[in-house]
């Protein structure tokens, strides 16, 4: 049987980590292909329910990444996001979701090597956590598009 390949939903800020992923690609840096990237205008746009929705629909891990504090394109978006992340991370941990499934990072658009390192690290951690079986819906509601 083939080795478990985690599915990871990644929420990247358009202005930094998304650019870093681009740069990593252009620079031919190897990183695992386990991510489904959702591009956000800012990490401040991230609503905690997106993260829960991802897990609920079967994601094995979630990775959220944005600009370094102080470098936000919208001045303070990631400062606000950081407070939300603190509560989200603590809540998820307290409820009993394996903390190895939820990852946060600050990666600027110039840090392609940091992107590569963190990407490898996230995939390894989620791989250790194994398939998400306890925090997903047993029966998914099929959207119309999936039925048709």
């Amino acid at each position, binding site marked *: 049987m083939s080795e478990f390949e985690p599915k990871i939903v990644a929420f990247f800020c358009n202005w930094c980590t998304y650019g870093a992923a681009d740069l990593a690609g252009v620079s031919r840096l190897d990183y695992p292909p386990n991510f489904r990237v959702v591009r956000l205008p800012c990490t401040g746009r991230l609503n905690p*329910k997106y993260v829960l929705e991802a897990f609920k629909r079967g994601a094995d891990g979630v990775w959220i990444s944005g600009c370094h504090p102080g470098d936000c394109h919208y001045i303070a978006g990631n400062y606000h996001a950081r*407070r939300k992340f603190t*509560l989200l991370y603590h809540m998820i941990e307290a409820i009993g979701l394996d903390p190895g499934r939820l990852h946060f990072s600050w990666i600027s658009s110039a840090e392609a090597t940091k992107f590569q390192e963190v990407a490898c690290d996230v995939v390894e951690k989620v791989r250790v956590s194994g398939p998400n079986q306890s925090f997903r819906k047993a029966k998914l*509601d099929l959207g119309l598009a999936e039925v048709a």
Partner: protein
Amino acid sequence: MMSLEEISQKIQASAKRLLTEGKVEVVIGYRRGSIPMMAAPHFARTEDDCNQLIWTSFARTNLAGYLSKFSGKVAIVAKGCDARSVVGQVVENQILRENLYIIGVGCLGMVDTELIQAKEPRLYREVTEDITTIKLFGADWNTNIVKEEVLRRNCKTCLSRTPKETADELIGDEVQPLPNDNWADLKALATKSPQDKLVYFKNLIQGCLRCYACRQACPLCYCPVCFVDETQPQWLGKSNDEMDTLTFHILRAFHCSGRCTSCGSCEAACPMDIKLREFNRILEEEVQKEWNYVPGLSWEQKPPLTTYRPDDEADFIK
């Protein structure tokens, strides 16, 4: 110590004075409920209405949520936790401070009717109370129950029993907090393994019907459209799926983080007697620990999620 009748009379007198002087157009308080051990919300506009106002230890509903339904000047009867919710309504711009008059009452704690029924399962016909005891009367029996033994959990650990800083007038004696640790059970829970925690919380909500009575009762839940009712996208399925229910409770707690005053309205409203505040308290503790913020104590301090500090710590971020 002032008796419950005296407190009731003082509330009535204040309400009459405020209405006749034209300071407010309505006084929100409690009246006797239609069944024993229940207090109903009461909106007093006339002298007759005022005579129905009471103070009991069954006044578990938080009335702060009604304030924004009135555009004119309103007075509200508030125990410690309710007064904090009222402050929250002002801080969140739901009502104007100048339209508001808070009749604060020193609160000895509200009782948990479930605990009473566990102690005395027989069918009662009439219930009376004084400051320390609840008296149950059945067909041919009666029992006394000591109030302190059947207090709600949030009342046992309440640190704001008297709303003396925020109330416009204070009725009853100032009440000191009980020496209980609010976070003891959370600390015990934190030592468990992730699997055990998840099992604990899934068991906790097993009975949940998702009737959303907790949301309706909560003074913080005033969104015109709640996320559970949104359909495009639909965040929660309509079936009773365990994960949907868990998501609802996590997000409900999230929306109340930095705002919840532990008034226990949600638990009082829950028809399945689920300990909903277990979810809220996780974030209540975190907000207090991280940003040293306790909701509803100050008219000026900004809620923690509307502000930030450049040096906020978050060592879990790589």
